[in-house]
């Protein structure tokens, strides 16, 4: 019995001894870990505040060195200081690393000591009390309740996550595409055709989809003129419209400006002068008077607007006039001044950039302005604008240039086909209808090109050719207006001339097809409305009251015309 008691006492003493040792180790390591933690935090803060690459002392010495670059003593001083700063920085880092390992070791020892101590403290129940089995049943009742609440909580959480957080996506409509709704974030074809997003309207082919517009007006007397507003600076570009906002641009030797005008009131919503564009040339390029610095018509993708100027400056603003991006494409080598207008395709801004230095098709990201592709084209300089058509098989970007009319995949820039049929300085843009492309240039020809397996010229016409105004194709006819005042109508399948009319003034503007009628404005600002038919039938002759060279924009029941000084809104 005695022996057993002694044995138990021995075990007890030994256990107590080990417990105390563990306790002391735990205390010591806890204190050390605490001190180390404080030191490490201080070290971390110090390291964060020290940046050797931007040391103030070094910066001051560097400034001195710029004044006296040959001072070798100063150079050595900078080097020594730089080395010192870097050494200090890396020493701090080493301290943090080493400290981490030390801290890990201390925590490990502390943990082991505590673990040992806890192993000596068994978990016995209070045996003086009875078993708590009754409570188990109570607890089960409670469990039922809380599991039920938990389930409801999950449902509620799922509801919040599932229903409330998806509103943004639903609003945009990626997952539930509906009829006529864009599924890709950029404007759908329907939206594009509902608006007037660029040069010669939707797709750039001169077709207006809003046909309920006035056929008669008179600028001088104010008949059917809803409003007019003076545009402060010059520009030959045409107005573009999205919703209730009209956009146009102006530029002269000193400034480049983008405007946004309210379509209902005719008031400026904003005007943005474009300064500080990276790469913008200090010396403006030489341009001719009838081209100017703002000949390219702007374009919009329904969210942002884009403008290009003769300087090669290109800018993107949002609908509120905030600059999204701006850059310089390189000053165009162009003896008249750059005039090719912009067009968008999905998230790409496409630019026909044919210069004296060579032809290029550029695609910039509409979002960032980053170059997506820069497709070289073996053509001469041109002033025509691209048109974007769907041939039934694919989307094609068709460009008129010398000597080739070329088609590109708008997504990649890859050339799809080319037809050699042009020469001279190309300004008229292509026309398109029903699988046929029509291109013209003075002293060259008017060519009808049929698209099929390969593109081929199926007819040509060589009289009364246009040098600036673009042709217009309806489903059956082709209309061509020339700068010396003639308008020709041809059968667009055969190229046979149906009629020719001569007018007082020449045409720089291009004809637009509005339902059954063609609207065509001459250089004096007189717009002729005639039937798009095999016989010439003039409907009206409408004076603007000032010279104009732009393309009218047709939206809802109104026409918007930019004269040389004012922008007019025509509506009954």
């Amino acid at each position: 019995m005695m022996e057993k008691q002694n044995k138990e006492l021995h075990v007890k003493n030994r256990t107590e001894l080990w417990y105390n040792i563990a306790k002391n180790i735990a205390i010591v390591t806890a204190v050390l870990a605490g001190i180390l933690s404080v030191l490490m935090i201080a070290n971390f803060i110090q390291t964060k505040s020290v940046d050797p690459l931007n040391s103030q002392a070094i910066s001051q010495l560097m400034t001195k060195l710029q004044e006296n670059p040959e001072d070798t003593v100063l150079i050595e001083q900078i080097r020594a200081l730089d080395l010192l700063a870097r050494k200090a920085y890396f020493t701090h880092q080493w301290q943090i690393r080493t400290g981490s390992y030390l801290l890990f070791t201390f925590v490990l020892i502390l943990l082991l000591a505590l673990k040992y101590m806890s192993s000596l403290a068994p978990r016995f129940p209070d045996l003086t009390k009875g078993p708590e089995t009754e409570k188990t049943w109570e607890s089960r009742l409670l469990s039922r309740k809380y599991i039920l609440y938990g389930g409801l909580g999950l449902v509620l959480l799922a509801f919040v996550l599932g229903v409330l957080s998806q509103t943004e996506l639903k609003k945009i409509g990626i997952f539930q595409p509906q009829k006529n709704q864009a599924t890709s974030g950029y404007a759908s074809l329907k939206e594009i055709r509902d608006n007037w997003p660029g040069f010669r309207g939707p797709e750039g082919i001169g077709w207006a989809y809003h046909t309920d517009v006035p056929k008669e007006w008179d600028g001088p007397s104010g008949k059917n003129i809803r409003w007019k507003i003076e545009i402060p600076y010059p520009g030959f570009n045409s107005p573009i419209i999205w919703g209730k906002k009209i956009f146009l641009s102006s530029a002269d030797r000193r400034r480049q400006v983008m405007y946004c005008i309210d379509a209902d009131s005719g008031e400026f919503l904003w005007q943005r002068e474009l300064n500080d564009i990276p790469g913008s040339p200090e010396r403006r390029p030489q341009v001719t008077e009838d081209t100017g610095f703002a000949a390219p018509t702007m374009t919009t993708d329904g969210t942002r607007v884009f403008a290009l100027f003769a300087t090669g400056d290109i800018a993107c603003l949002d609908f509120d006039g905030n600059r999204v991006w701006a850059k310089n494409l390189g000053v165009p080598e162009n003896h008249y001044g750059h005039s090719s207008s912009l067009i968008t395709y999905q998230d790409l801004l496409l630019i026909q950039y044919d210069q004296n230095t060579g032809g290029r098709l550029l695609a910039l990201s509409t979002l960032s302005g980053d170059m997506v592709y820069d497709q070289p084209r073996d053509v001469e300089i041109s002033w025509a604008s691209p048109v974007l058509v769907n041939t039934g098989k694919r989307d094609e970007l068709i460009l008129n240039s010398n000597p080739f009319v070329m088609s590109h995949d708008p997504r990649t820039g890859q050339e799809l086909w080319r037809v050699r049929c042009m020469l001279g300085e190309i300004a008229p843009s292509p026309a398109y209808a029903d699988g046929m492309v029509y291109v013209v240039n003075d002293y060259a020809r008017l060519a009808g090109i049929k698209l099929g397996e390969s593109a081929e010229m199926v007819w040509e016409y060589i009289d009364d050719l246009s040098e600036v105004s673009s042709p217009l194709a309806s489903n059956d006819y082709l209309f061509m207006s020339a700068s010396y005042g003639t308008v020709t109508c041809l059968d667009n399948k055969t190229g046979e001339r149906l009629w020719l009319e001569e007018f007082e003034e020449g045409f720089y503007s291009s004809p637009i097809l509005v339902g059954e009628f063609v609207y065509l404005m001459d250089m004096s600002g007189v717009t002729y409305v005639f039937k798009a038919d095999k016989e010439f039938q003039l409907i009206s002759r409408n004076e603007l009251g000032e010279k104009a060279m732009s393309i009218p924009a047709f939206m809802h029941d109104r026409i918007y015309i930019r004269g040389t000084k004012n922008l007019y809104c025509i509506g009954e």
Partner: protein
Amino acid sequence: MKLKKLKIFFVALALLCPVFVYSQVQERFPKPDFESGYVRPDLLTPAPRSVVWEYMDILVLVAALSLATYFAHKLRSRRNIFLLMVFSLVYFGFYRKGCVCSVGAVQNVSFALFNLAYVIPLSVILFFALPLIFTLFYGRTFCAAVCPLGAIQDAVVLKPISVPEWLARLLSMFPYVYLGLAVLFAATGAGFIICQYDPFVGFFRFGADFNMVILGMSMLLLGTIVARPYCRYLCPYGVLLNWMSRLSRRHVRITPDECNKCRLCEESCPFGAIKKADEETQPMKKETDVKQLAVLFILLPVIVFGFGWVGSRLDISLSRLHPTVSLAEEVLLENAGKRTEMTDATKAFRATGKPLEELFAEARAIQTQFHKGGWILGGFIGLILCLKLISLFIRRRQLEYDVDKGTCLSCGRCFAYCPYEQVRLGQMTPEELKELDRRDVSIKQFRA
């Protein structure tokens, strides 16, 4: 003597691990030298292993599982289980940097099941299946001594408190939700969230995202008083192990003999996995329970369907975690002018020239998968909720103190509390056992 040898073996293995680490460093290309003295940071994810070493991992896993089972069932030694656990922590945790692990392997298997083009490595299949097979026969010995995630938490258990039963039952729903989500995300290719949100892998790799380090530290801090919180209330693999363990025929028991209901083991389990004998229990009113149970049975299909419907409504929210959908969303928002700056991902995508419609079509297809998966996930959670509620109505008479097969981790903590264990170990004679005054029992007598 045998024990001493075993201990030496484990210590030697643990010490050799760092040597293995450096012997495994493989570089396909020489590292560039930086004149500036720049030191390349270490990778946070382990490099792929050669096939030989994959087999070595499998061998180690089999050996560890076998030893854990042997220690728990045959030797009934908590100390050996603890030592093996330390080895597993060092090998599978710090040396193998927590990869491959059985918990994460759930996702590989799910991904492989739904993506036939994915060739799942043999080692991953075995890491997934072997612990389940061992559990099916012998209970969760994997959790006791092999799983590094369990080991790191077990190492910090200092003063565990008893979590109230209602709270424990409520929290035990989360592993099912986590498992469902992990399978859904893996099957749809959205990602391996178990690995992504592993709170301990940062410690194993000595580096992780700051938030994950904070989460891991919080989990370990919590683990000092709530034993193994991740294993009990989050581990998705634990759900499968729980199911297997319930079916196991040779599960560890508290007593090696018979239970004399001395109650000494009552508080010994920090995981609350001991079922108390309840012969003295006063039954509740049965009629109410039967009625409620009948209602529950009638409502079960409705609840499952309802949860399924709610799950399906999560399709858009959940699918956003898929990289393709997330990219599509970013592109969409940028196109709509709702993002002024492009992300690296959208820049890279746009540079490929891939048509946007193609991207959106892919995103829509993935969202459809999430819609279907949401139905299954919701239905699964609804079903588990109902089964948990039903189990609370079922009265089974518990004649003796025993482990709950599903939740017991076979850690062996309870063994030493049983007087019959002391007799088995020769620490106490059968006569002494008879004379034992339960109230004077001291743990010192029972230490194995």
